[in-house]
């Protein structure tokens, strides 16, 4: 049987993270038949057309609108690897400062070197003044550690306090998989990077 357009639709859906073959088939059939599902897809592209990321902090914003993250308390900046780590930390409710999305970690295997991260934007935020502390909420992996050293070196001339969340959590563990209590504890018990 030649699945033609159905196959193309399924294969396109499969490119989305977490979408299995089965799920892709289910979504494809509903998209082909259900007007409500079709409207949802149209709305998705409108939303995405209007989205962009903040040049200062990396957070996602609506084009032309001020950044909600940059509007938060800027005295303390929490640096995270990714969007999902940001959500994990925000959910604890223990952090009221603003975030900085690094866009990854130093990981040559994935083609990521210091200049591919948003370290320079972070430096500009700190140099703009008013920042007292930068908390590095990065994983205790070799990539996370290398990134800590890079950021510490980058920020040292500004004199800002650079701290990192407490270790004590299993190495290799991604922040997004940790529970709220563990993240909250790691934040409170942060240590100065020296």
């Amino acid at each position, binding site marked *: 049987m030649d699945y033609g357009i159905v196959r193309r639709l399924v294969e396109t859906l499969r490119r989305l993270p977490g979408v299995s073959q089965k799920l892709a088939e289910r979504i494809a059939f509903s998209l082909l038949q259900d007007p409500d599902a079709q409207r949802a897809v149209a709305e998705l592209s409108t939303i995405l057309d209007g989205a962009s990321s903040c040049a200062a902090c990396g957070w996602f914003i609506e084009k032309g609108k001020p950044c909600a993250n940059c509007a938060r308390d800027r005295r303390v900046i929490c640096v995270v690897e990714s969007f999902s780590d940001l959500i994990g930390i925000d959910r604890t409710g223990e952090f009221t400062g603003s975030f900085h999305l690094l866009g990854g970690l*130093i*990981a*040559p*295997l994935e*083609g990521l*070197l*210091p*200049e591919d991260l948003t370290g320079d934007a972070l430096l500009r935020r700190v140099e703009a003044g008013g920042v007292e502390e930068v908390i590095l909420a990065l994983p205790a*992996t*070799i*990539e996370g*550690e*290398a*990134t*800590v*050293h*890079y950021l510490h*070196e980058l920020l040292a001339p500004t004199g800002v306090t650079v701290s990192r969340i407490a270790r004590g959590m299993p*190495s*290799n563990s991604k922040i997004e998989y940790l529970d709220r209590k563990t993240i909250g504890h790691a934040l409170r018990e942060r240590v100065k990077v020296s």
Partner: protein
Amino acid sequence: MHLESLLLRNFRKFKEEQFSFGRRTLISGPNGSGKTTLIEACAAALGGRSFRSADLKECIREGSDHFFVKAAVELGGLDRAELTAGADRKGQKKLTRDGQPVSRRALLAATSFVLCTQEDLEMVSGSPRKRRDLLDRAAMGMDRGYIDIASQYLRYVKQKTALLRSERKSGLKHLNEAAVPLISEIRRRRGTAARALSAHFAAAAAQAGLELSVEIRLSAEEGEEVRRRLHDRMAREIERGIPLYGPHLDDIQMELTGRSARSSSSGEVAFGAFCLRIAETVLLGEAGWPPVLFADEIFSFMDRDRRDRAFALIAALPFQTVVTSHRTPGEGNAPEDCTVIALEN
């Protein structure tokens, strides 16, 4: 740990066969009957790797397209598990524990066994790689946390290699800096393992009625020294495109009773390698991970006297042991309480 039984399907010469193991097991049979193969299959199920072939797929029986082995084990106390390993000709490998896929790392963290094979002679007389493996296994036995440290270090070597091969070189010193504590810790733990092994080695030899010793020498560079070495090597590493320093390259020297391996006899080397494995076994037991000892034909180079002493050492171990021999039992090498697996051609 205790191995209860092993099922082999299309594993080298075995089409489909099941074997049961006792507290002591003797695998006997003529050359080519499958003694080494059986131990190899045990190690595949318990450790996810073959000690004979670099790739598990070489264990697939001629004419088949995949093999499967299944071990029923007691991991400690009442914790029973079913461990399986399989591979196909495309190189697809699968390890499971109780039906769920497991990583090789998780498998090694759960099982405990020591392999003593002909290849062990190289531990004494061959390249440093075998000696690094010995110390890493012993360090892992003393503290399973070592697996995480070693795997983070391996990750560092891979990231660094990728960096050295890429056009851009930024981030090299940051990766190096992140590796300094790992490198120091690996060396410290290898050093501790080496000292523990030497002590157990001397004790084993004394128990066998021989006055032997082993000296293991390795790099003890730590902290600031490591940082300086890494820094000094950077230019050459960039030029060559590969990491040139670290525990994965460390030279480890070994001397048996004050003599280098080159000036020891084959039998002395064989007995030395055997005592090192006994030391590893005792060390794992002390650390709370009573292992299964698999000993495959390491006695070939030993004379009658040493062979008897070696058998006596195995017999005295308070752990499960699986030993192969091409002699048939009845020639005086099978104690009464021994389970015998007699293989034929």
